[in-house]
């Protein structure tokens, strides 16, 4: 009997999938999505009362406004942004009192900047364009500064910190945490929001080999949604090993083992040596990423441990769907200004908010995407305004939907194909697809075109032979598909390559 009731319940649920949710579930979703906690008992009762008084809409609107101004929301957004930049996210939720002052983590200029953008609803572009920073530093019991030294090279000499003098004046037993702010000229070409913070630059360190390309890749990924897979491993699991060790174990640049020394003294010598055994950097395929990474990386050229007082020219260069961008810039400040003017930047940031508040796997039509862009622009690119809009959309208010097997398969296949597309996206390919995007299912309205494309994927990856004789990805690529990933694609194609709605692209 119990199973019968359960079956009838599931059946009735399945018949009403996609329906708009009740006010109480909407409140739950709002609370979890914006605050990260369940609603309180009082809020549930207030909503019941508001429904009785027919004021539920204004009550829920008020909750959106209230939630987006809570410390919980700021913490949540900070976490999301940290994850987006791939810096270690905070580990302590806010609003939980900490009994020990020593638990207080000194905040860096990056932390304060991100928090300020959310707390004061500044334009999202401020992540790139901000010119003011605040940071903490300890004077006692030990000297520790997150950013004081970092900015001192470009501050006026009168602002230089005399650490010795300060430490002499510090009391002996009381921990002192100070907060300090620096404001640069709004036109300062050396400053670019989070890009010129120690946390960002330390996360994506410069080395003799990567020449700021890691930073450039982070900029492309974070702001233009152009992720790239490194063909040369940056680090091995062995933390002792450097890039040089990995690439050329006998290099005098990389190895500390005296017996392994060679005559290689410079990077150029190393590169020549590398080319003998490793074709990376000489193959056209490598240029799929390097043609854009190298010029952008140059804008970080003078930034190592501290910011340089000079700018470093470079360029913003990339191609996207036959649209080419080639903008020389005088330095990282101008680079940031140019990035926020690009269509790809707006597309990327809109999709980022969509992923965070609606769901990455909830598809957008072109029309819907354009509506979102209009809304993003109309809201002055302010995050709280745009998020408030998103959580009022029908896509947010739709009840949770169980996916079919084919819909799940499409999402899994998309993840694998994204890795292929990351390298192939800049190729000038006209395959009669509705757009050159390997994850944009269905590829075409015509079955024969889809069939041809799927055959190409099948052959390139040798899915029939479980990848044994595959042509792609090339051997020098860091990413090589796992047996599970190959099986996903094989099954996906065998099932007719269903799109996100579960509809087969081929029979």
């Amino acid at each position, binding site marked *: 009997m*119990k199973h019968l*009731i*359960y079956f009838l*319940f*599931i059946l009735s*649920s*399945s018949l009403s*999938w996609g329906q708009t*949710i*009740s006010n*109480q*579930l909407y*409140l*739950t*979703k709002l609370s*979890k*999505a914006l*605050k*990260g*906690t*369940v*609603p*309180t*008992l009082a809020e*549930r009762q207030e909503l019941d009362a508001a429904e009785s008084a027919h004021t539920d809409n204004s009550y829920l609107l008020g909750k959106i406004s209230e939630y987006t101004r809570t410390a*919980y929301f700021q*913490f*949540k957004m900070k*976490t999301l942004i940290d*994850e*987006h930049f*791939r*810096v*270690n*996210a*905070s*580990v*302590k*939720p806010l*609003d*939980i*009192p900490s*009994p020990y002052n020593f638990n207080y983590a000194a905040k860096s200029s990056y932390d304060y900047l991100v928090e300020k953008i959310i707390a004061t609803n500044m334009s999202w572009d401020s992540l790139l364009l901000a010119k003011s920073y605040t940071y903490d530093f300890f004077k006692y019991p030990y000297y520790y500064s997150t950013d004081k030294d970092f900015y001192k090279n470009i501050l006026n000499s009168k602002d230089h910190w005399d650490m010795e003098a300060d430490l002499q004046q510090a009391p002996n037993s009381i921990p002192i945490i100070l907060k300090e702010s620096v404001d640069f000229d709004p036109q300062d070409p050396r400053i670019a929001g989070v890009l010129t913070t120690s946390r960002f630059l330390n*996360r994506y360190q410069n080395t003799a080999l990567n020449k700021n390309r890691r930073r450039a890749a982070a900029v492309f990924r974070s702001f233009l949604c152009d992720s790239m897979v490194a063909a040369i491993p940056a680090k091995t699991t062995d933390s002792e090993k450097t890039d040089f060790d990995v690439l050329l174990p006998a290099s005098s640049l990389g190895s500390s083992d005296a017996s392994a020394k060679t005559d290689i003294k410079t990077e150029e010598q190393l590169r020549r040596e590398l080319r003998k055994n490793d074709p990376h950097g000489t193959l056209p395929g490598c240029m799929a990423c390097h043609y854009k990474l190298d010029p952008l990386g140059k804008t970080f050229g003078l930034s190592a441990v501290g910011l340089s007082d000079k700018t470093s020219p470079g360029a913003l260069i990339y191609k996207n769907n036959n649209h080419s961008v080639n903008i020389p810039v005088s330095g990282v400040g101008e680079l940031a200004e140019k990035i926020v003017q690009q269509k790809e930047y707006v597309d990327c940031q809109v999709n980022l908010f969509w992923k965070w508040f609606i*769901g990455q*796997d*909830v598809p957008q039509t072109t029309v819907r995407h354009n509506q979102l862009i209009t809304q993003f622009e109309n809201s002055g690119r302010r995050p709280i305004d745009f998020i408030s809009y998103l959580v009022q959309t029908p896509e947010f208010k739709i*009840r*949770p*939907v*169980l*996916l079919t097997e084919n819909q*799940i398969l499409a*999402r*899994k296949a998309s993840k694998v194909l994204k890795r292929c597309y990351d390298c192939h996206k800049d190729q000038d390919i006209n395959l009669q697809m509705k757009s050159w995007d390997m994850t944009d299912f269905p590829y075409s309205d015509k079955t024969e075109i889809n069939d041809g494309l799927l055959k190409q994927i099948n052959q390139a990856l040798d899915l029939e032979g479980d990848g044994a004789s595959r042509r792609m990805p090339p051997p020098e690529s860091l990413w090589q598909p796992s047996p599970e990933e190959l099986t996903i694609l094989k099954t996906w194609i065998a099932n007719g390559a269903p799109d996100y709605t579960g509809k087969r692209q081929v029979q």
Partner: protein
Amino acid sequence: MKKKLIGIIILYTSLGQASFEENSRRYMSYGELISSLTAIFSIDETTFSYISQDCKEVTANNKSDLGYNNSLTGEAIVSSPNSGYLRWISNCTGNYIASISTKSLDTLNLVSKTSQDYFKSAIRVANELNLYQLASIRYETLPPEIQDDFINHTFYLVFGPDEVFNQFGLADAKVFKAEIKAHLLKTSRSVLEALNIVMLNYLMRDEFLSY
């Protein structure tokens, strides 16, 4: 404890769960899970210090259990709550309940006004009655309406009204609560133990973990 945990797992799995990748739902993040626990259990400054470190912040021990983001890849260490989360929440539910067990019933969200009145009247103790004292009361000896109130109130605290739970389409709230009650009555246990089991079963559900 082991026996209890196995019983809970059986109850949990029999109700049917779906993994993250099999749904378009978004799971709460590590920070949100902890924030939600502190909200549900009404943790304040005095009780906070009694909670173990692993239950109130992300540590090296619980990172993977809570789906912490791997900053190298930009992806969560695990794609959905798994047995690691089950272990973590089992430990932390007990820890949270223990940390608030000395608080007066009046200050606890976990017990409804109806049940508070009943407990106070039954033991003839005024505001001093706390969860710790409830350890001496057996769940099966409670009047049926208080047994139900106990389950319904905590359910409401975590999920809201039945309709919220039902709209996830995974289970029916009435059937679920009936199963929980039947499970509690299978063995003699104190109200405190019952609270532990009830909360644990709620906090493992997708209807709590996702949105």
